[in-house]
C-alpha cells in the first residue's frame, strides 16, 4: 500500500509539472492555433536561469527562502522575456502564412535555443542545488511523500487557481477568450490582438519557468536537453486533455503523470518515455479531440 501511495504522489507531482508546461501549449494553441515547439526550451531556460541565480545567491550567503523567491522570480522574468521575443521574431511575421511554415519555424527556434544554451553554458549535467528543504512536519511520512513533491503540488494548485481567476474574471482574460474564439471579430470589437498574443506567450512562459525551477530542484540536475522530452510529454498531456482547453490540459497532465508513474513502478522503468508516446498514439487513434476537447469540424 505504501508503495502504491508513493507512486500515486510521485505521479501527481509529475502531472503537476506537466500541467504547468502543458498550459503554455494549450493557451498558445487556443489563440493562434500553433504548436509552440520552443515551449519546452522556455522551460529549460527557466531551469537554467534559476540555477544560475540560485547559485550566485548561495555564494553570497542569502537565506534559503530569499533564494527560492528570487531565483523563481528571475526564472519567470527571463523565461517570459524569451517567450515574448520568440513570438516577435519567429511567429509574428508568419501570422498569415500556412500552418506548416509556422510549425517549421517553431522547430527551428527550438533547435536554436537548445544549442544556444549548450554553447553558452555547457553540455554536461549540472547539479542543481536542493532549493526546497525537507520540512520537519513531513518527517513521519517522508518515506512515502517527499517534501518537494508536496511543494510542487501546492505551488501548482495555487498557480492554477490564479490562472483560472485571471482568465475568468479579468479584462485581459476576457479578451484572451474572445481572441481564441474568433480573432477577426475580437479585432473588430477593439481588442489589441497582437498584445493579447504577447500576453499569452508571457503567461505560458512564466508557468513553464516555475515548472522548470521546481522540477530541477526536485530531480537535482539540469541539462540543455531537458526541455525536449518534457516539452513532448507536456504536449501529449495537452492533447490528451483536449488541446485548447485549459481544464483539459490539467486533467490530461494528471492522467499522463499517473500513467507514467504506475507504469514505471509496476512494469519497467526502461520504457518510461515509450509509455507516454504510446499513450499519445492511442489517444489519437481512439479519441483525437481529447478528453475535454471539442470536435472541430472543417469548414470551407
Amino acid at each position, binding site marked *: 500500500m505504501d508503495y502504491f501511495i508513493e507512486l500515486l504522489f510521485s505521479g501527481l507531482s509529475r502531472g503537476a509539472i506537466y500541467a504547468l508546461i502543458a498550459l503554455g501549449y494549450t493557451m498558445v494553441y487556443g489563440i493562434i492555433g500553433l*504548436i509552440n515547439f520552443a515551449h519546452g526550451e522556455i522551460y529549460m*531556460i527557466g531551469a*537554467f*536561469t534559476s*540555477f*544560475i*541565480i540560485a*547559485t*550566485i545567491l*548561495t*555564494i553570497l550567503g542569502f537565506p534559503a527562502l530569499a533564494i527560492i523567491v528570487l531565483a523563481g522570480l*528571475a526564472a519567470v522574468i*527571463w523565461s517570459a*522575456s*524569451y517567450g515574448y*521575443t520568440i513570438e516577435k*521574431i*519567429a511567429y509574428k*511575421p*508568419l501570422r498569415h*502564412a500556412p*500552418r*506548416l*511554415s*509556422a*510549425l*517549421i*519555424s517553431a*522547430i*527551428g*527556434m*527550438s*533547435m*536554436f535555443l*537548445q*544549442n*544556444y*544554451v549548450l*554553447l*553558452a*553554458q*555547457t553540455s554536461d549535467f549540472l*547539479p*542543481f542545488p536542493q532549493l526546497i528543504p525537507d520540512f520537519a512536519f513531513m518527517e513521519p511520512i517522508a518515506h512515502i511523500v517527499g517534501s518537494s513533491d508536496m511543494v510542487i503540488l501546492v505551488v501548482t494548485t495555487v498557480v492554477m487557481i490564479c490562472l483560472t481567476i485571471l482568465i475568468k474574471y479579468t479584462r485581459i482574460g476576457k479578451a484572451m477568450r474572445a481572441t481564441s474564439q474568433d480573432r477577426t471579430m475580437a479585432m473588430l470589437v477593439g481588442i489589441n490582438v497582437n498584445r493579447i498574443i504577447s500576453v499569452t506567450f508571457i503567461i505560458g512562459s512564466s508557468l513553464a519557468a516555475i515548472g522548470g525551477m521546481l522540477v530541477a530542484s526536485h530531480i537535482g540536475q539540469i541539462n540543455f536537453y531537458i526541455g525536449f522530452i518534457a516539452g*513532448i510529454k507536456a*504536449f*501529449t498531456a495537452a*492533447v490528451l486533455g483536449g488541446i485548447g482547453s485549459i481544464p483539459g490540459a490539467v486533467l490530461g497532465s494528471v492522467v499522463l503523470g499517473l500513467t507514467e508513474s504506475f507504469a514505471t513502478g509496476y512494469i519497467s522503468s*526502461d*520504457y518510461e*518515455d*515509450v509509455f*507516454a*508516446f504510446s499513450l*499519445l*498514439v492511442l489517444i*489519437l*487513434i481512439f479519441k*483525437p479531440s481529447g478528453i475535454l476537447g471539442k470536435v472541430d469540424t*472543417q469548414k470551407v
Partner: protein
Amino acid sequence: MFTLQEIKRSLLVSIWFVFLTFPLMVIRVDSIEKTVQWRWMNMVYVAIGSFLLSFVFRYMLQRKEMKSDDNGDDDKKDKTGRSFIHQGLADPRYRNIILGSLLAVALIFPHVFSTYQTSIMTTALMYVVLGLGLNIVVGLAGLLDLGYVAFYAVGAYTYALLYHFFGLGFWVALPIGGLLAAAFGILLGIPVLRLRGDYLAIVTLGFGEIIRLVMENWGEFSQGPSGVSNIPRPSFLGIDMSLDTALIYTYYLMLLFVIFTIFFVNRLQDSRLGRAWIALREDEIACQAMGIDKMKTKLVAFSLGAFWAGIVGVIFAAKTTFISPRSFTFIESAIILSIVVLGGMGSIIGVIIGAFILILLPEYLRALSEYRMLAFGAILVCMMVFRPQGIIGSIRRTYTYKKQTDGEVS
C-alpha cells in the same frame, strides 16, 4: 535607411537582447566549487551583433513585404530573374550539357580525390536521397514528418539484424529494409493521417523516439546501446574487395541509386498521384470534392517516403559497418528537414543543392562544426520568415501558350 529613428530602434533591440542573454551568456557558475565566472566580452558581442542584425532583419522584412505588395507582375520577374537554373534545365541543349558534365564529374570523382573525400561524398549522396524521400512527404504532400529518422533506423536495423541472425546478404536485405520501412509507414500512417497536420508532426516525433528507445533498451534483440557491429559491406558477385575498392563501390552504388531516385521522383511529381499530392497540400476540402481519396493519397506519400529512408538505411548500415541507436536521434530528422526546407520544399534541384550545402559545408568547416545545429535552427526560422519557397523554389507546372512563330514550329 539609416535614419535616426532606425538607429534608435536598433539600439533598443540591442539593449533588449543584452538583457535577454545576460544570465545565460555572461554568467557561468559552478555550484560545487562555488565559483562565478563573468564573461563580459560576450555581452559586447551580443550588443554589437543584435544591433547589426536588427537592421538586416527589418530590411529583409520590408523587402518581403514590398514583394508581396506588387504581386501582380511577380510572374514576369520570376521568369526572367530568379529561376535561371530552371531555365537552363528547361532548355534541352543546356540541360544535356549540364547534366552530362555533372555526371562526368560524379563518375571520375573517386579516382581523382582520396577515399576520405569519396566517403564524405557518399554520405552527402545518402542525404540527397533522404532529402528527396522526405521531400515527397513534406514538400509534395505537405505532411510534416518529424520522425523520418525512424524509417531510416528501421532500414539500417533490418539489414544489421537480418545479417546477425540469419546471415542474409546486402542485396536481399535492401528490398526487405525498404518494404519493412514502408510497412511501418503505413502502420503509423493509418491512425494519424486522419488528423490535422500538427498532430502528425508530434506523433511522428514520438514514433522516432520510440524506435530509438526500443532499440536502446531491448538488448537481446538489437544489442542495446552498444549497437550492432561487423556488418558486411555491399558485395558484388561475391568478389573479395579491399577497403578502398569497397568504398568506391559503395559510392557508385549510391550514385546509381541517386540517379534512379531523381528520375523516379521527377516522374512521380508529374504523375496523377503527384498532382494529387500537391492539390492535397494546397486545399484538402477542395481535393475531396474533386474525388481524390485523401486518406489513400496521403498514405501512399507517407509510405513511399518511408521506403526511401529504409533503403538508405540499409546502405548506411553497409557503408559504416556499425550502427547504434545514437545514429538515429531527432537531430538526424532535423537535419533532413533542414535540407528540404533550405533547398525549397517540393523542388528536386533545391533539395539536392540543400543536401550538398548542409552536409559538405560543416564537413569542410570543421572549426564551425559545433555551431552546426545552432545554424540549422536559425536556417529553419529564417527560411520560413524570409523565403518560404527555399533557395530554389519549385515552379508550378502551368500551361504556357507559346505563339507559334515561323522558326519554332514543332
